[in-house]
């Protein structure tokens, strides 16, 4: 195993969880299995985001410190990857696929319909915190383009009016 | 019914137009002076560190950057809560005076002297500094030399003629060397002689401009300027505020200029990017006042240098104690040139001018600061608010030219009413409408700290407000 990183992990005092929220246990377990090594940072952040839905300063600080990573590095990593959310997400999520097939089959129209209906662009959440809109690179469902995923369920060959109806029913 | 447009107003420092409304009987009913540029310094500097402000603000105007450097640095001094070292205070004064010399020279020789020397009705194709150089090479050379005198001092002190970065919060960035001082002092006699010679020429020819002198914005008004709190002499960098009325009653005297909002209000008109300040107690627009050379000569007891004071005495003797004609800005300007040259000599001969301690350092100690100084064309106010880290949060600027906005509007109307009859407009008449603006030496770069430019447009409106005609003078 990587010698340098193991050294870095040794002899460091680890912080205690920010609160007695049980979800920290999940994160702790994952970090322990990763050996508190800095190279496990992304995995640990994945777990923290799964547990809390997003990564706030507290989570970033705790995970970063536990994994032996400076706060700026934890922040740099969390903001580099589009999968990590630094703000709480809405009750529902609507992910529009922006892959090539979806694009040439009218994904732009779907995004337009969402903006028209909800007034938010990809990456934003409606002010009432109900729906977060996201853009995905490709779900790999190109054969059903254009595709959206609403609360984890994929809807293929969807038209803008159909999407609006779908969002209205949430 | 017609409309006359003069566009652009030429031989002025900026972008503006003039719209003149002519009634059915051919008489001028209204005239408006419109500044057409805005850059938004009051907004674009928000978020910048305060230490950049003097240099930033210098970019308001390339004609009098030093005035802005000074007012801005003074506002910052107040935010830092420091006492500027004595030598730095004097050096800043020298730069400001040099600035006044070069700017006044620019206005008088390069921009106004073509009208004075060649005549208001002369051929517009040659009615410029080249024409002056051809007719009276000596006059043109004096102009160039006097402007150079001022610019060279600025360059000597700040390393650069336009936009030197030398004036900084807390003082200046480098002290003066003996050699630099001696160079400047060595240039003074020549500059003095040229200023005197020009004054003589002006006084000899005064009678030939009697018609214009009588009608170029000649009306009683208030005057404002900075004076020394003890002596009542002119004080361009660190004075107290004095406001006198047309009869010389002091409406304000020996007051701290910084809380300007106690005395001055600002109004916005729909036709100009330049705001109109007014004297608050008299309200808008009755609170019209004038600033700049004529106003300063009217408010001060004396200037403070002997030769210039003798000239001032003659000025007052010939025109009265409170001359109200804006044409006399020209004469006042020449007297100020002389005064500034001599005062530079006085200051540089002082004992502590070569002190090495020229800058005070401090962190932010006040969240607000106002800096006031006399720019060539009038009193200049910079007002900043910062956060505790020294980042600019809010800026208000009351600019020299702005104070004269109401007066310029009134002057334009007066001249238009006298020289424009119907829609048959002579070129010379239009030139006079512009010339009255030139007399004020408006720096429209400054006045357009907010936005703009200055083509002179004469627009003639029907009584119902419909634009009837727009006159733009054709090129020569």
């Amino acid at each position, binding site marked *: *195993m*990587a*010698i*340098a*990183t193991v050294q870095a992990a040794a002899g460091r005092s680890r912080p205690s969880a920010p609160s007695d929220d049980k979800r920290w246990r999940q994160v702790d377990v994952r970090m322990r299995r990763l050996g508190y*090594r*800095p*190279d*496990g*940072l*992304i*995995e640990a*952040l*994945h777990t923290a985001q799964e547990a809390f839905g997003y990564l706030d300063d507290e989570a970033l600080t705790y995970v970063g410190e536990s*994994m032996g*990573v400076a706060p700026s*590095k934890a922040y*740099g*990593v969390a903001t*580099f*990857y*589009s*999968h*990590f959310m630094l703000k709480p997400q809405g009750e529902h999520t609507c992910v529009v696929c*922006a*892959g*090539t*097939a979806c*694009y*040439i*089959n009218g994904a732009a129209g779907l995004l337009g319909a969402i903006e028209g209906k909800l007034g938010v662009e990809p990456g934003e959440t409606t002010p009432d915190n109900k729906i977060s809109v996201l853009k*995905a*690179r*490709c*779900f*790999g*469902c*190109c*054969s*059903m*383009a254009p*595709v959206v995923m609403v609360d984890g*369920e*994929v809807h*293929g060959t969807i038209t803008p009016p159909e999407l609006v109806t779908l969002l209205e029913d949430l | 019914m017609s409309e006359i447009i003069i566009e652009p107003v030429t031989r002025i420092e900026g972008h503006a137009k003039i719209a003149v409304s002519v009634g059915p009987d051919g008489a001028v009913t209204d005239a408006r002076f419109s500044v057409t540029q805005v850059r938004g310094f009051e907004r674009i500097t928000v978020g910048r560190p305060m230490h950049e402000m003097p240099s930033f603000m210098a970019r308001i105007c390339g004609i009098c950057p030093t005035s802005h450097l000074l007012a801005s640095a003074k506002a910052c001094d107040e935010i830092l809560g420091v006492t500027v070292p004595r030598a730095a205070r004097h050096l800043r004064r020298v730069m400001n005076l040099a600035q006044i010399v070069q700017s006044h020279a620019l206005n008088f020789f390069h921009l106004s002297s073509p009208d004075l020397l060649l005549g208001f009705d002369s051929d517009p194709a040659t009615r410029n500094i080249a024409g002056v150089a051809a007719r009276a090479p000596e006059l043109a050379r004096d102009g160039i030399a006097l402007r150079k005198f001022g610019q060279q001092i600025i360059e000597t002190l700040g390393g650069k003629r336009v936009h030197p970065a030398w004036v900084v919060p807390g003082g200046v960035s480098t002290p003066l060397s003996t050699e630099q001082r001696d160079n400047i002092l060595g240039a003074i006699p020549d500059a003095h002689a040229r200023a005197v010679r020009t004054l003589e020429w002006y006084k000899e020819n005064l009678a030939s401009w009697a018609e214009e002198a009588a009608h170029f914005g000649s009306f009683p008004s208030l005057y404002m300027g900075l004076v020394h709190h003890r002596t009542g002499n002119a004080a361009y960098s660190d004075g107290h505020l004095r406001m006198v009325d047309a009869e010389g009653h002091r409406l304000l005297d020996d007051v701290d200029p910084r809380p300007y909002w106690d005395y001055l209000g600002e109004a916005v008109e729909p036709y100009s990017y330049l705001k109109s300040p007014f004297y608050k107690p008299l309200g808008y627009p009755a609170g019209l006042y004038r600033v700049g050379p004529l106003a300063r000569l009217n408010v001060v007891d004396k200037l403070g240098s002997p030769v210039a004071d003798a000239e001032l005495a003659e000025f007052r003797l010939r025109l009265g104690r409170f001359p109200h004609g804006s044409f006399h800005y020209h004469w006042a300007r020449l007297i100020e040139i002389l005064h500034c040259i001599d005062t530079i000599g006085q200051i540089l001969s002082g004992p502590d001018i070569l002190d090495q301690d020229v800058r005070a350092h401090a962190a932010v100690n006040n969240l607000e600061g106002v800096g006031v100084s006399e720019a060539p064309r009038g009193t200049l106010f910079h007002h900043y608010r910062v956060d505790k880290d020294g980042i600019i949060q809010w800026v208000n600027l009351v600019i020299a030219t702005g104070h004269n906005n109401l007066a310029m509007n009134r002057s334009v109307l007066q001249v238009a009413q006298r020289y424009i009859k119907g829609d048959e407009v002579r070129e010379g008449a239009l030139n006079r409408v512009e010339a009255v603006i030139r007399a004020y030496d408006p720096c429209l770069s400054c006045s357009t700290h907010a936005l703009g430019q200055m083509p002179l447009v004469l627009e003639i409106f029907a009584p119902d407000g419909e634009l009837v005609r727009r006159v733009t003078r054709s090129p020569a």
Partner: protein
Amino acid sequence: MTAVGTPAATPPPRRRQAGPLIPEGPVRASAHICQAAGCQSMGSDRLLEVLSDEVLGAGLRDVAVGRVGCLGLCSAGPLVAVPEQGRVFERVRPDDGASRQDLLSSLSGEAKGGRPLAGDSFFSPQVKVVLERSGTVDPERVDDYVASGGYTALAKAVSEMAPEEVVAEVVKSGLRGRGGAGYPTGLKWRTVAIQDSHAGKYVVCNADEGDPGAFMDRSVLESCPHQVLEGMAIAGYAVGASQGYVYVRAEYPLAVKRLSHAIREAGREGFLGREVAGTRFGFEVEVRIGAGAFVCGEETALIASVQGGRGTPRPRPPYPAASGLWGCPTLINNVETFANIPAVVAKGGEWLASMGTERSKGTKVFALAGAVANTGLIEVPMGVTLREIVFGIGGGLAPGRRFKAVQTGGPAGGCIPEDLLDMPVDYESLTQAGSMMGSGGMIVMDDTSCMVDVAKFFMDFCREESCGKCAPCRVGTQEMWRFLDRMTRGAGTRRDLEQLESLADMVRSTSLCGLGQGAPNSVFSTLRYFRDEYLAHIDDRVCPAGVCAMNAGGRSEAVPAGVGVAGVGSPK
């Protein structure tokens, strides 16, 4: 533990799991329901339950209902294959009983409905190496994989071959990297193998399939994860690594789930772990989940990401083969490359080399999408023509539509026009045509696609995915996008076009990594074949395909040129 070497000797035990229905006795017919993400999104997971119930309800005691990987024809999902009948049933919906009538009759023994596999224009031209087991084995059952001959190659390699022999076999196969660039796999293996490293070596499987419109790797991982693990373990043995990582995108949860499950199974069965197949060779595999950054497909960025950092690339050399993970020699291959390995070892390098063209050996998996009738996952021998793919396997375009281009190679690839349709599909030909093999996305475009808009789409992708480390890519992709955007708004000028081309050249030549170097390709290739479309946007302010709004048209005066260098002294 299953005896290695005789995997097919005993039939796999039949038992009732949560999903699949496995009869106690002999099986007469089986329904293989595709459980890859595409069909699942059409409800194939529910179909598994519904169909099982129906089969039980109909008293068909000798019928199995099983879970398999991708059947390929994704546009017609959910798909169910009945191998005994050689038929595939399309659009078998869980909530539409009528759609299952033919299938149920088929399972009952009547050959009725469905699509016969033999002679089918979509299925029969395909040659399956990578997808050999896709659609036939249960991706969640190692036993299925073993029963189909899986892990025999690994066993053979570790027990019968020296590492150099394995490498030699891979060299012989002529296999080239399937991730995009086409670097000879054997050469890469050899480079890693000959490195001296006290700190160890690593094998990394790049499953960060980021190209929009590409889902080959996902399908492979979802359909047959063991095949990839087997390839990795063989690689580990060949190059002298004992640790492997699979770097998978977070967007592929099902692939991650099946892969993790497969790693556990393989560990349990002794195909991974301290003593692989009972030998002294040890090999462990960990999954690392990406977090949404296309650039991590670049190998040095991927390394940075596996090490828990920002996925920014670094200049090469040194190449990962010499200095990769934690500075150790690291072999990085993509999913499809590894999936080829078991067959190469089992059947010999020459077997693979017998397929394909002179310099491109074997097969290639493509994700066929866009304006063709049959879209989905296909595997064809290298060297077939684009025409065969588009008009044969793909079934051609919709009636009334005219073919315009086929886009291959993802964002760094290009668009190939109609007159090159008879070009063979191999690394060199595609590169020569101004595109690239890439990972295998293939999108067919008809006359309703605007090529300027397509270039803008890919540039938008690149600018959003640029890591920001080097200026040419960070700024260049933004600026190229702005030029393209202006053109699609009807505000572009000839000068913009000149600028765009010179900028594209600069970005290609000076960017740090493949993302930036490849980003201008969408511009180059569309300009090469569709310059007239650009000129129509610029000169006539018209979008021939009718895609661009061109709303700045007619008031172009209000749009700054953004650029402009005069001809000397020219008054315009």
